[in-house]
């Protein structure tokens, strides 16, 4: 009998990282199936197929890139290393947060660059600073805008998207504006069921919420990140909405449109690029939610979910450092720091939200004043 020495403990939980990634892959496949089916039925079979082919294209690009990387690095078992690097998840997410008119070429090149420069140069899985999928999609948005398939754009994305309509109104929306945009999409019911075109995986709120619950139940994603993110988006836009007279509708609208739900389930929960401690995770999610809304409301981009995550990724090491210490002995100090930073971020966002102005309404009121002045002059 051989008696081996191993340091304690010699008892392991069943759940493994590979298991976590497999469950995540199944959840992403569910979104793919829904999107392919919806595009297939709503437009034509070719569009359903296009969703699948875009997915295949990204996954092949991701896996191939990693295989070549491991080959160059002199890996002894390339298959094993690729299967432990989980690159396909990045590929799948890139497709689901992009729009259907993006060309295969753009998907392929962006995925390769995202895998190489977003992940492998940092040392591979677990070492990357930026969420590689967000990195890839940022590339598509900024570098491949012109490569979009014009035919697809005109057939599927011809109408104004909810985000661009709201953006045109400066987000300073009263009840009528929000109701108008929502009813253009077929009402909240239609939005929840995902019956409109937006980013490929982001439309069906119901599916995303079910998957979120399932992933939490399977202990694959950390509820603190998702739930804090959603709650912050909802509460901040609720208060902003109330200031402008739109209230709950404005809050629900902000939660449902764009990438908020998809990013909140699949991207903000990427453990590699988010803080490890619980206060850190909560702070991360609050800041990401505020940034999402700030970018959406005031920046030139229609949606902020993606870039808010990328920006927050940069701050992850700083947040980790902020929350260093014992959760028992330093609990109060850490909580105080987190509360102060969160409060500052929340107040700034609310102030910005409170002073949102509708550019059309503003120019109209300026015109009114001018006429009034003119009239006064006339009277005199």
């Amino acid at each position, binding site marked *: 009998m051989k008696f081996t020495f191993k340091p304690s403990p010699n*008892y392991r939980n069943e759940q493994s990282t590979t298991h976590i990634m497999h469950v995540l892959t199944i959840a992403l496949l569910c979104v793919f199936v829904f999107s392919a089916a919806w595009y297939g039925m709503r437009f034509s079979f070719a569009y359903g197929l296009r969703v699948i082919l875009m997915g295949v294209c990204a996954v092949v690009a991701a896996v191939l890139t990693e295989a070549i990387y491991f080959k160059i690095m002199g890996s002894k078992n390339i298959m094993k290393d690729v299967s432990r690097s989980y690159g396909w998840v990045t590929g799948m997410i890139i497709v689901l947060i992009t729009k259907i008119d993006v060309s295969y070429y753009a998907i392929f090149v962006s995925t390769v660059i995202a895998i190489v420069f977003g992940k492998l140069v940092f040392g591979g899985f677990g070492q990357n600073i930026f969420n590689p999928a967000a990195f890839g999609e940022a590339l598509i948005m900024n570098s491949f805008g012109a490569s979009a398939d014009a035919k697809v754009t005109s057939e599927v994305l011809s109408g104004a998207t909810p985000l661009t309509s709201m953006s045109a109104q400066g987000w300073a929306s009263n009840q009528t504006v929000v109701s108008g945009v929502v009813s253009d999409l077929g009402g909240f019911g239609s939005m929840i069921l995902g019956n409109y075109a937006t980013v490929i995986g982001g439309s069906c709120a119901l599916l995303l919420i079910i998957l979120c619950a399932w992933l939490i139940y399977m202990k694959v994603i950390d509820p603190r990140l998702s739930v804090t993110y959603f709650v912050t988006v909802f509460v901040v836009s609720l208060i902003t909405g109330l200031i402008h007279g739109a209230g709950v509708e404005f809050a629900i609208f902000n939660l449902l449109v764009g990438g908020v739900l998809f990013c909140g389930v699949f991207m903000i929960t990427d453990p590699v690029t988010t803080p490890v401690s619980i206060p850190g995770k909560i702070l991360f999610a609050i800041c990401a939610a505020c940034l999402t809304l700030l970018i959406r409301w005031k920046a030139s981009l229609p949606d902020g979910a993606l870039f808010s995550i990328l920006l927050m990724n940069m701050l992850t090491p700083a947040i980790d450092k902020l929350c260093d210490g014992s959760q028992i002995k330093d609990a109060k100090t850490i909580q105080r720091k987190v509360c102060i930073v969160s409060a500052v971020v929340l107040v700034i966002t609310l102030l910005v939200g409170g002073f949102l102005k509708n550019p059309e309404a503003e120019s109209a009121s300026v015109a009114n004043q001018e006429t009034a002045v003119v009239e006064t002059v006339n009277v005199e």
Partner: protein
Amino acid sequence: MSLFTGPMHYHLNGHKDLTMDKEVLKSIDPDYVYIPLVNGNAPCTPCVQVGDEVKVGTKIAERNDRFFLPIFSPVSGTVTAVEKFMTSSMTQADHLKIQNDHKHTAVRAFAAFDYEKATWEELLEFVKNAGMLGLGGAGFPTYVKYLKPENVDLFAVNAVECEPYLTADYKNIEENLSLLKTGTLALFKLSKAKKGCIVIKEDKKKQIEDLKKTFEGTPIEIRTVPNIYPMGWERTLVYELTGKRYNMLPIEAGMILNNASTAIALGNAIDNGMPITHKYVTVSGDALKDPKNVYVPVGTKAHEIIEAVGGYKEGVDNVLLIAGGPMMGRTIPNDAFVIAPQNNGLTVLINKEEDEVACLRCGRCTTTCPSGLQPVRIAAAGKSKDEATLNKLHVMDCIECGLCTYICPSKIAVTENVRRAKNFIRLQGGKK
């Protein structure tokens, strides 16, 4: 658990059904026993010579530095040698080798004692001279805890036994309820506590009933705690019972705790006048043919116990032999070590290679750490030998309970990384 902290514990599969309902094997009577002449890190001085005859209950050694602890012979026979080999704590120590004459001639070690009539001082003296020590694993002399029992609100007998596989305490309580009652009431008196209780996991329904019947009409309450690890650890248990955290000793939170086996041993000393001679030991694990509890003399060699319970499963040729349970017990690279008084288990597991992948920074080690530490951050700071950060992260608060390694989905030996960081700080002479 608040918004900003994790649960700081985890439910794990205890595999206790392997041994819980089986008869305890009591026939083991080795030809030689080897009594480790060590308690904690302190050597003990033998008070018998090679060649001396001893009986069951003869005092054979004592620890006499800042603490006092007598050690008694578990068998009758002849002292034949002093041998040096590895103990179950993986240190080299002298062992007193006693040849067993199998006659079990006993000598009553302590005179009849009535703890109810005795004064507090007499009782403390009795506990000290009876060689009582923490049988939960620490082996700390019991009387020391009771030297200054001021403002003790709650006295608790710890019958939680949260370590997986182990059922030795459970079996010991099951067979010795009346001794437990004597020992618990005596310790309760010694603690001068306002309230007393026995703490047990809520899933041990039958034993809870037995305990309730036994302690009916006494001031001792039976309190149940959830089946989670490490509920048996003093800090976690004190927090569960009182909601208080403490710095060094439970008495700061107004509590004194002792293991149930210790209480039973004291009951045995009071009722029968006998010291700790035998131990209930759980012999379990997936490498064994027939896991069960055994009742053996202190100083029995591990391989004799394993043979006695039927040995290894067919085809098993590489095992982890663990003194204790798989979470905190040490793997010993040979089977020649002996059962010390504080040992309560031998876990034998098939040696499987873990499939380690990169850390994904999920933070599970942080949410489950019962000491409230951040093992993943400690491991990183330890690798870069960053002394300041390690101290900021309170690395020395780690008790090596093993939960961070257990929970890690990437199968990284997190506890070992933290242990290395602790050793690094110790070498730097860092603050505790």
